Each structure stands twice: as structure tokens, then as C-alpha cells.
């Protein structure tokens, strides 16, 4: 039965992301809870109007770092069933999703906590970069505060 095997799903794609697709990919008959996190593009930063974001990734390493996070989640929340991360690359217009994380579990606490841990870890260790392009100011490579080697921390 498909239900027996936990799924570890990763997709790094230039296509528009779909919440329904992530939700369906982690649905399972023995789970009562799905928790989903969606990161979207904001329209301003420090008063500068953001026109779009541009994402790039070190794709094979991003995939392997995500799988390390999944292994960590399964060690911390053993009842977690399916895990799925879709991350968009290239240009992401304002209000569209850059990342969608979906996790299912029999009871809700595990899925809720695991999703929070997953986005925190993704920001700290997965080699993906975002350039914010403003209406007026110079484009800027962003730095996650969760990343251990930024100068800003």
C-alpha cells in the first residue's frame, strides 16, 4: 500500500507553485492533519517598493540539504507521514508563493511543529538565494537571519 511508505518530496521549479498540489501530495488516509506554510513575495522592504524577486539555487545541494532536514524532522517527530517542499526559482512576482511546505501526521501537533521547524531549517541551511528588485533602489541580495554566516548577525 502506498500509505505504508512515508514520502519525502522535493521540487525546485521555475513554474508557479500550487497549494493544492502540495496539499494533495501529502494527503494520506491514516492522517488527520496537514500543516502548510506558504512564503509569499512582499510588496515593500524598508519603504522601497519591491517589483519582483529573483531566486537561484545550487539545485543538487539544495535537494540534499532538504533531505537532511527531512531526516531530522522524522527523528524529532516520528509520527510525521509525508513531507513536501516546493520552492520556486527565477522570477517570482509580488504576492506569488516562493515556497510551499506541506507535512501530514495522524495528530495535528506534530505536523504543525514540524512545518515550523522545516521553514526555520530551510532558511538556515538550504543553498537558495533571493535578489529583491526595487522600483527605485539598487537590487539587493537578501540574507536570512537564520543563516549562520551572514555578516549582519
Amino acid at each position, binding site marked *: 500500500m502506498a500509505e505504508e511508505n512515508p514520502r519525502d518530496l522535493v521540487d525546485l521549479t521555475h513554474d508557479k507553485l500550487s497549494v493544492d498540489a502540495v496539499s494533495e501530495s501529502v494527503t494520506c488516509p491514516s492522517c488527520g492533519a496537514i500543516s502548510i506554510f506558504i512564503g509569499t513575495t512582499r510588496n515593500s522592504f524598508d519603504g522601497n517598493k519591491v517589483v519582483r524577486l529573483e531566486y537561484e539555487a545550487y539545485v543538487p545541494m539544495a535537494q540534499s540539504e532538504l533531505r537532511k532536514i527531512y531526516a531530522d524532522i522524522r527523528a524529532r517527530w516520528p509520527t510525521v507521514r509525508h513531507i513536501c517542499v516546493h520552492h520556486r526559482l527565477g522570477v517570482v512576482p509580488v504576492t506569488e508563493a516562493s515556497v510551499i511546505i506541506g507535512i501530514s501526521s495522524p495528530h495535528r501537533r506534530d505536523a504543525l511543529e514540524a512545518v515550523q521547524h522545516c521553514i526555520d531549517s530551510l532558511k538556515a541551511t538550504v543553498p537558495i*538565494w533571493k535578489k529583491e528588485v526595487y522600483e527605485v533602489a539598487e537590487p539587493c541580495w537578501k540574507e*536570512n537571519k537564520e543563516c549562520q554566516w551572514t555578516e549582519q548577525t
Partner: protein
Amino acid sequence: MNTEVTVFYFAKSAELTGLKSETIRVPSELTTLELWQELVNRHSRLSAVRESVVLAVRQEYVAFGNQRVSLQHGDEVAVIPPLSGG
């Protein structure tokens, strides 16, 4: 002994080198700090980000220091600026 590796540059480091990737010859045994110096020798503008990048060797993070790495033909090396995924 030297060996040939592929170096990937991302985000700010790609802008500074003007390259997404290149294949270079480097000593097959060296410290991560010496490996960084090899890259700066080719692209002096990289020195501007020394304090805010780490390296990856064979898709695993390595910190700058006296830690030795053994490189084999075709290995991937990457310059990893501060992450901003999510």
C-alpha cells in the same frame, strides 16, 4: 599534484566573478583557506565577500580554516554567500 575541479559561483559571488561556473586546476590536497585563496587569485573582487561566504566541497559545507580537503578530478566546489531561500 594538481587536479581539475568545477567551481560554482552563486548570488553576489557570481556577480563579482562574472561567472556561474568554471573548471580550474588546483592542488589536490590543500586547506579550505588555501582553496579560497586559489579562487581569489583568479577573481580578486571575491575578497570583498571573504567574511560572509562559506565553501561547499562535493555539496557539503566547509568552513574556512586549516581543515584539509582532498579533491578529486571532477569534484564540485561552490562559493556560498549568505542564504536567502524561503
